[in-house]
């Protein structure tokens, strides 16, 4: 898997062309939407109240669009101006901020009913300069403490990210705990290389909803069912490959079915001298020496 966070800082990596590419890629769209839905599920918001959410690293608004669809009011922050520009073009409904989450938020305490973040906080794990405030632990601490105070009690924050090692997960969860969060890591499809997704599920206070502090279970199995997991054209490709392999739908060239079909076709077209069908049609010849 490629790791863009190792290439350049986010505001530079997601320049104009990369921002457009990222947003128009149908596979990205699909994966982002799935993860956003899953994050909302983990957020466990009370169903009858219109919530006010924070989208951390909202980018071009792929996740925000889903928040719009689901009827939430939201505020998005991102560090890449090009991505925010795309979000403006796409006319998402939330308010957007150009902000470095490693510098912390300036929101008043307790205003948000929840926070989601899709594929973002791995970007906090790289130091951009040697200045003390740009070390990953310092930035993570600043991020989690200000996030914690911006959230209402009880509520939840669900942060999906791509850790490159278990050490990173440990670093992030320990800092989140120090900032006052409860909860932990939920792993979906832990046995699948492709579908595996890590969600940091953080609780403020009781964790929101009528449920206890118990951590939700990760989804199991080898991955999401075919078709749901795949992008738009992957489904068709898959279907075609299946058909070829099983050979049931399409007659194998040279087989009896294929010969009969061809002969029928020739007759319909009025070709002369089409051999008549018999029990010997398409039969294998005896091996002769």
């Amino acid at each position: 898997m490629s790791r863009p966070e190792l290439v350049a800082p986010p505001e530079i990596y997601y320049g104009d062309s990369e921002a457009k590419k990222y947003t128009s890629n149908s596979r990205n769209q699909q994966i982002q939407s799935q993860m956003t839905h899953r994050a909302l599920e983990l957020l466990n918001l009370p169903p009858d109240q219109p919530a006010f959410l924070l989208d951390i690293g909202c980018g071009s608004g792929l996740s925000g669009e889903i928040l719009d669809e689901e009827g939430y009011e939201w505020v998005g922050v991102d560090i890449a101006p090009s991505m925010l520009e795309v979000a403006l073009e796409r006319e998402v409904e939330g308010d957007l901020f150009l902000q470095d989450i490693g510098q912390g938020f300036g929101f008043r305490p307790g205003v948000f009913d929840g926070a989601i973040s899709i594929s973002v906080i791995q970007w906090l794990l790289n130091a951009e300069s040697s200045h003390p405030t740009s070390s990953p632990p310092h930035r993570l601490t600043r991020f989690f403490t200000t996030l914690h105070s911006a959230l209402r009690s009880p509520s939840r924050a669900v942060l999906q990210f791509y850790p490159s090692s278990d050490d990173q997960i440990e670093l992030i969860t320990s800092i989140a705990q120090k900032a006052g969060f409860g909860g932990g890591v939920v792993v979906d499809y832990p046995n699948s290389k492709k579908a595996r997704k890590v969600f940091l599920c953080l609780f403020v206070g009781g964790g929101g909803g009528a449920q206890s502090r118990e951590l939700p279970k990760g989804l199991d199995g080898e991955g999401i069912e075919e078709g749901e997991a795949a992008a738009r054209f992957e489904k068709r490709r898959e279907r075609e490959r299946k058909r070829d392999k099983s050979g049931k739908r399409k007659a194998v060239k040279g087989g009896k079915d294929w010969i009969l079909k061809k002969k029928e076709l020739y007759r319909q077209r009025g070709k002369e001298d089409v051999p008549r069908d018999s029990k010997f049609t398409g039969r294998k010849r005896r091996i002769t020496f």
Partner: protein
Amino acid sequence: MVRLITHNLLACHAKGCTTNNFPLVFKDVQLEIRESEMNPEFLRNFYPKLEWDALVKTAEQLGDTSLPKTQPPIESVDEEFLKALHHVLLEIHVEEGAMTCPNCEHRYGIVSGIPNMLLAEHEVA
């Protein structure tokens, strides 16, 4: 797309700026009114979270005086009032301009509706 609802949540987050850092003051603003659908339930939910004085003060600065000076209790709120509140909170968009912190005077510029909340290295707490 800075609406007053988000402005009402924002305090200055520069280093050492912990008192008198709310609300940020709008400067040289260009406004745009964009109508949107009202969600009374959401407004009622959000009502207790508002900093009323800051909201009224800012709305006045932007030329809207439809809100009363003191926050009416939520039980006495009627449809008419919610409409006015909805307009102030969600339909007034600040497109260009800046917000400045009343304490440290840090200037957060607003370009095409997006405020720049980035801090310089020495301002990071």
